[in-house]
């Protein structure tokens, strides 16, 4: 342990030197720098279907990527690599948040996200309001969140295009993971505020009609690219459907109550064949779990953790009238295997993403095979189609690594160091704790 602290101190000095000189050689592990070997008592790998945990492990980082991971006695550290022994602490993948509304900055932090002139705005881009250095993202980083899907609000049926960002870094270019990162669909339960009289059936029709037009537009381009038609006139309103049809991004869906979740699954995914995932998924939405599982659609639950025992409005608690129904637990019990957690930040502060998983367990979610951590890492990464880059500590992925002093979802656990793209972007010892 002392060994680790000493090395850490040396590392901190090195880091400060770099900051002071600005343009000197990149730090070990970062792009262009020498290699970095992180040694830890436990490495939570979180691969999709491979090993989940490596005890007494080593993680090799070079050029911002994970070069290798394995048992310390089996994996040799190449010459010239800086070794950082974190002692009894653990390594975990940086968390991936798929429902973030706070990466811009204006009057109320979130008011650049919802233009409510039309009911469907697939052309609008959250990327227009990204503010590097955003305060909420910095706090999220200190809480272990390294990637966010920053999305428009749910005031209209289709709020626009989300953007996938790293929480670290000072420039848009360095933060960017993918743009568009998703298309935000709000089927019901907020867009009705757009105008008096708009309800569940109208919103359903409006969604259906917009999706149909978007798909027709994308198909014309696909035909042209196959050499089977003229070049269509560019229509910015529907361009995002070309990304959707290629399955490069998915529709992030504000959806809740059983019948609406059912439409997300059977209409958006089943009828239109568009890639989709479920956000919120509360108020009985979990009753659609068997269908979602069959379709391979993920449920990223939150910010609410529970269905409340109210009998009047919400009667879906069924035999649990007088009990709380944990949402993650509900989805899990009915067979959903891809369950993640979100904050809807600022509804729940970005830095409390992992507390959402802890409360999932509090309300009955079974965590015997790292399901909680997977729901914060590989499952959202795969859901957002960025699992080739983030979501687990596997060879070839971005070196987004957390150094933690206990189970990552325990509220009492502290995130001590965060690496993003191999750069040590937050260090509680160096920068001071943020709480």
């Amino acid at each position, binding site marked *: 342990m002392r060994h680790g602290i000493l090395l850490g101190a040396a590392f901190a000095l090195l880091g400060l030197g770099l900051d002071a000189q600005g343009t000197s050689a990149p730090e070990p592990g970062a792009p262009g720098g020498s290699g970095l070997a992180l040694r830890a008592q436990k490495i939570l790998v979180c691969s999709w279907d491979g090993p989940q*945990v490596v005890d007494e492990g080593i993680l090799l980082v070079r050029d911002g990527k994970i070069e290798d991971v394995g048992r310390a006695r089996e994996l040799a550290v190449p010459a010239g690599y800086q070794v950082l022994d974190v002692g009894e602490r653990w390594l975990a993948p940086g968390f991936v948040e798929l429902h973030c509304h706070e990466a811009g900055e204006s009057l109320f932090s979130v008011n650049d996200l919802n233009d409510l002139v039309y009911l469907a705005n697939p052309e609008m881009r959250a990327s227009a309001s990204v503010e590097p250095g955003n305060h909420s993202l910095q706090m999220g980083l200190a809480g272990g969140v390294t990637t966010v899907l920053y999305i428009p609000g749910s005031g209209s049926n289709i709020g626009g295009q989300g953007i996938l960002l790293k929480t670290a870094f000072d420039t848009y270019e360095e933060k960017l993971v993918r743009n568009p990162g998703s298309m935000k669909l709000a089927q019901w339960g907020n867009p009705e505020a757009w105008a008096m009289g708009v309800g569940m059936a109208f919103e359903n029709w409006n969604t259906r009609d917009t999706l149909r037009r978007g798909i027709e537009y994308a198909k014309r381009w696909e035909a042209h690219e196959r050499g089977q038609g003229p070049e269509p006139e560019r229509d910015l309103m529907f361009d995002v459907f070309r990304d959707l049809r290629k399955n490069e991004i998915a529709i992030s869906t504000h959806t809740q109550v059983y019948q609406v979740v059912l439409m997300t699954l059977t209409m958006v995914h089943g009828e239109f064949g568009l890639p989709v995932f479920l956000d919120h998924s509360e108020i009985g939405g979990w009753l659609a779990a068997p269908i979602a599982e069959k379709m391979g659609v993920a449920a990223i639950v939150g910010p609410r953790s529970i269905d409340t025992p109210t009998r009047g409005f919400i009667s879906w608690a069924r035999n649990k009238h007088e009990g709380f129904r944990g949402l993650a637990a509900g989805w899990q019990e009915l067979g959903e295997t891809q369950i993640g957690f979100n904050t809807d930040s600022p509804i729940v502060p970005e830095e409390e993403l992992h507390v959402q998983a802890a409360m999932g*367990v*509090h309300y009955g979610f079974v965590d015997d095979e790292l399901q909680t951590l997977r729901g914060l890492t590989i499952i959202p990464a795969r859901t957002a189609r960025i699992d080739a880059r983030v979501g687990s500590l596997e060879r070839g992925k971005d070196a987004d690594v957390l150094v933690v002093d206990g189970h990552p979802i*325990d*509220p009492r656990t502290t995130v001590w160091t965060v690496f993003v793209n191999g750069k040590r972007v937050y260090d509680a010892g160096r920068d001071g704790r943020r*709480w």
Partner: protein
Amino acid sequence: MVSPLREVRRGLGLLALGLGSCRAPLATEPLRAAPPGTPPEDAGIAIRCGKLLTLDPEARIFDPGMLLLRDGKIAYVGKPIEVPGGYRIVDRPESWAWPGLVDLHSHVQSAGWWDTNDMVKPLNPEFRVRAALDPGEERLRVADAAGVTTLFGIPGSGTSISGFGVLYKTKRDAPYERMILRDPGGMKVAFNYNPQRGGGDLGSTWCGLSWNLENLNDRAANLARREGPADPALENLERVHRKELPVLIHCASAEGVAGSVRMWKDRYDTVCVVSHGDWDGHFAARFMAERGVPLNHGPRLMNFTTLRREEKILGTSKAFVDEGVPNFSLNTDAPVIPEEEFFLQGSMSARLGADPYQMLQALTIHPADSFMIGERVGSLEVGKDADVVLSSGDPLDPRSRVELVFIDGEIQYSRCDDGQVF
């Protein structure tokens, strides 16, 4: 001090978080055959548990531990011993045992916000929550299923003095006389902010609020020095001035905290506990510590203003404890924070820097001691009320599950028999 819980937390493996099991439901548990001549089977209950957190003055922890409950009180606490004849045995070798939690700031005694705040006059020392206590309130059942066993049910903060609250147990379907720990339990004062209704009446500024309170307190203090109650409306306030009943003071900000201490401790020398103390209240923490005034903190546990100024969220629980505020306790202000998430106030304080064991004290013995009920509840000690919680793990860990709750030696909640409430 090294936190005993910290060591335990390190040991929390990834797979050690399983669900509490229903292997041994109490209702069907075979009774031990007692030797001839032993007392009847209901002599008491013997609990054999894993880790037992006493929260006593020596902070003793037994692993494994044992408790004997008899006549509603704790008859033994310590290492496992031979079970006396006639005791029913609750065998839970993997469960943790800890004292029922004590929340001093709770409004769930009557349905919703109704019946918690009569706001006709600014000063209501004659009001009693007794009149509005609903033993059938569902949130009490949820509270006890989360191990919260003692509540100070109080009126709101809409007026300067809103009345006298009741200290009661979260028993299910029990009549008033079986729920009550002490009635009146203490007085509720709202020192600043909420009582400033701004209707143009006296009390819309801190000057008026203070004059109102001091004018009334001077009368009550004078009465308290004489024999016999002269004013029925001030009967209970007199008892406050005789130090027979404590005062819980709603206040916020440094000047609010300091003002509360000056009035209720320095000027009237009452048994007072400052409640909330949020925003920048922690700047008055050392002043509170010097005067020996306890704090009942929450529902907010952090200072926001430090966020933009210092890029840092300040955990205020730690700030108060570090300055030496005695008997630091936590609250929910339920329903602001649901009563069943009282433990989470401790977890989140620990997340924001406070010591986990001290936060456990802040949920149990500290609120009890600061409110003159430390002889009855707040720790597992011989002679105290048998309010015992068994859980699958550390009480501050959201992943732990409450399995069994005893109040006054009776089972109030059993996860096996009653099902999972959450």
